[in-house]
C-alpha cells in the first residue's frame, strides 16, 4: 500500500497541509507588510453634489471599464450602440468563460495539443493585462 501511494502522489496530511501552512504564513506576512507600509486609502467623505476628477474603479474592474470606453468608438452605429455592446459584450465573454467546459468538449488536456483554446486563453490574459494597464494610465 505504501509503495502505491508514493507512485500516485504525496499524502494530503501532513505533506500537503504543511505546504499550505507555509504558503499561508507567507501570505500573512505579505499582507501584514502591505498593511503596515501602504495603509488602506482614506479619501474624503462622499459628496453627492461634487464629482471628483479622474474617477476610476478598483484596478480589477479597470479592464472592463476600458472596454466600455473603447466601445464608445462604436457610436457611428447609433447612440444605443456603445453602452449596449460594451455591457453585453462583456457579459458574453464572461458567459463563454463560465460555460467553457461545455464549449470546449475535447478530452485533450495538454495545452500544446489544443492550440485554439490555448491561443485564445493567452490572448485573453494578455488583453486583460493590457486593458488594465491602459485603463490605469488613461
Amino acid at each position, binding site marked *: 500500500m505504501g509503495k502505491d501511494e508514493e507512485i500516485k502522489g504525496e499524502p494530503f496530511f*501532513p*505533506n500537503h497541509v504543511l505546504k499550505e*501552512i507555509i504558503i499561508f*504564513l507567507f501570505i500573512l506576512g505579505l499582507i501584514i507588510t502591505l498593511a503596515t507600509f501602504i495603509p488602506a486609502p482614506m479619501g474624503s467623505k462622499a459628496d453627492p453634489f461634487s464629482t471628483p476628477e479622474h474617477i476610476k474603479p478598483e484596478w480589477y474592474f479597470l479592464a472592463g471599464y476600458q472596454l466600455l470606453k473603447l466601445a464608445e468608438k462604436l457610436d457611428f452605429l447609433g447612440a444605443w450602440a456603445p453602452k449596449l455592446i460594451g455591457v453585453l459584450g462583456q457579459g458574453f465573454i464572461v458567459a463563454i468563460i463560465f460555460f467553457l467546459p461545455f464549449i470546449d468538449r475535447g478530452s485533450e488536456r495538454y495545452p500544446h495539443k489544443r492550440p485554439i483554446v490555448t491561443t485564445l486563453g493567452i490572448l485573453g490574459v494578455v488583453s486583460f493585462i493590457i486593458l488594465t494597464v491602459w485603463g490605469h494610465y488613461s
Partner: protein
Amino acid sequence: MGKLILKRVLLFFGLLLPVIAFAEETEISCVICHSGLSGEIVAAVDQWKRSIHKSVGVSCPDCHGGNPDSMENAMDKKAGFRGRPKIEDIPALCASCHADVQKMRQYNIRVDQYAEYKSSVHGTLLLKKGDTNVATCVSCHGKHEIRKKGDPLSTVYYANVPETCGKCHSDKQKMKPYGIPTDQLDDYKKSYHGQILYGKIKGKNPALAPNCADCHGIHGATPPGVEEVVNVCGNCHSKTAGYYRESPHYLAMQEIGVPRCVDCHSNHNIQFPSVEMFTGKGEGRCGACHEEGSLPLETAKEMKELFGKVIISVEEGEREVKEIRSSGRNIDELLLDIDEARGMVTEAITVTHTLDPVKVKKLLDDSVKRLDEISYVAKEVRKDIKIRHIAFLGIITLILIIVILLLLKLRSLKYL
C-alpha cells in the same frame, strides 16, 4: 451658406430696388453708399456688428444722425445728420439714451453714469475747461465695438480695465500737461492685487481682485482724497481699517496727514505685507518715520519676533501633520486645526494695525497653544508608527522562523 447667397441676391436687388433692401436691413443703406468711399466705414460696421448695440437695435443713425431711408437727404445736416460727433458732445450723446430711465429700464442697467462722469476729473476738464484730451465714454468703451462689461472681450471687462486705463495713463505724451506719473500700470501689474487679477496667485479668485476702478471709481473717476484712503481700502479691508482707527497712527493722520494706508503699503505697487516691514528704514518700513531706539520701533521689533516664531511653528506644525499621513490616518481634523491656528496669525496681523503688542500677543499665544496640541498628537502618532515598525519586524521574524522550521519538517517527512 444659403443665407450668404440669399444676402447676395438681396444685395443685388437692393442695388436695383433700394426699397426692398431697406426693408431687409437698414444698415445696408448706409453701407451701400459709403462702401465705395474707403475701408474705414466697412471696418466700423464690422465692429458695430460685434457690439451689444447691434443686438438691441441701435444702429448708425442713432449716433450719427441722418435719414438712411431717403437717398437724397440721407446726409442732410438739416435732417439731423451729425457725421463724426465732436469729442465734447460724446458724453451727452451717449447720455441721450443711457441717462433715460424709460429706455434703460428694459435692459436693467443704471442711468447715473453721465451724472457721475460730470462730477469726475475727466468730466470737469472736458465740460468746464473744454479739454478734449481727456477720456470720454468712447475712450474706455470703444467707438463702434461696444460690448457688455461681462463680456471677456470688452475693454471694460474686469481683467481688461487696467490696460484700458493704462492706454492713456501710461502715455507720457498725453499725461505731460497734467504732471501726473505714468508708471501706475506697471506698478499695478507687479502688485499683489494685480497678480491676483491676472490669475498668478493660486487659490485666489481673480474676479474679486481690485482693478483701477475699484479704488478710483468707475465713471466718477477721481483721485481718492486724503481722508478717503482709509475708506477706499477699508471697503474691502474693513477689519484692518477698524483696527487702524483704534491706533495712535489714526490720531496722527488726522493731525498731520500721515501715515495713511498707502504710506506703508504704497499705492499701485502693493505687495503682500510681511513681518520685514517692522524693521529697516526703507520706504514703508517702520524705521522710515521712527527713529532708532524710539519706543515705537522697539514695539515693532518685539512684534516681529513674536510673528517670526509663530510663523515658523505654523509651518512646522503643517509639516508634522503631513508627515503622519503615511500612517493611513485621517488628518482632516488636524489640518483644520492648523488652518485655525493660521487664521489666528492672520487675524493677529490685522490686529498689528492697532499697534498694541498686548492684543497681538494674546492672539498669537492662542495660536501657539493650538499648535502645541497638534504637535503633541503628531508626536504620539509618530511614536505609534515607530512601535508599529518594530512590532512588524518582530512578527515577520517569527513568521520566517516558523516557515524555516516547517520547511525542515517537510524535508524530514520527504526523506523518511
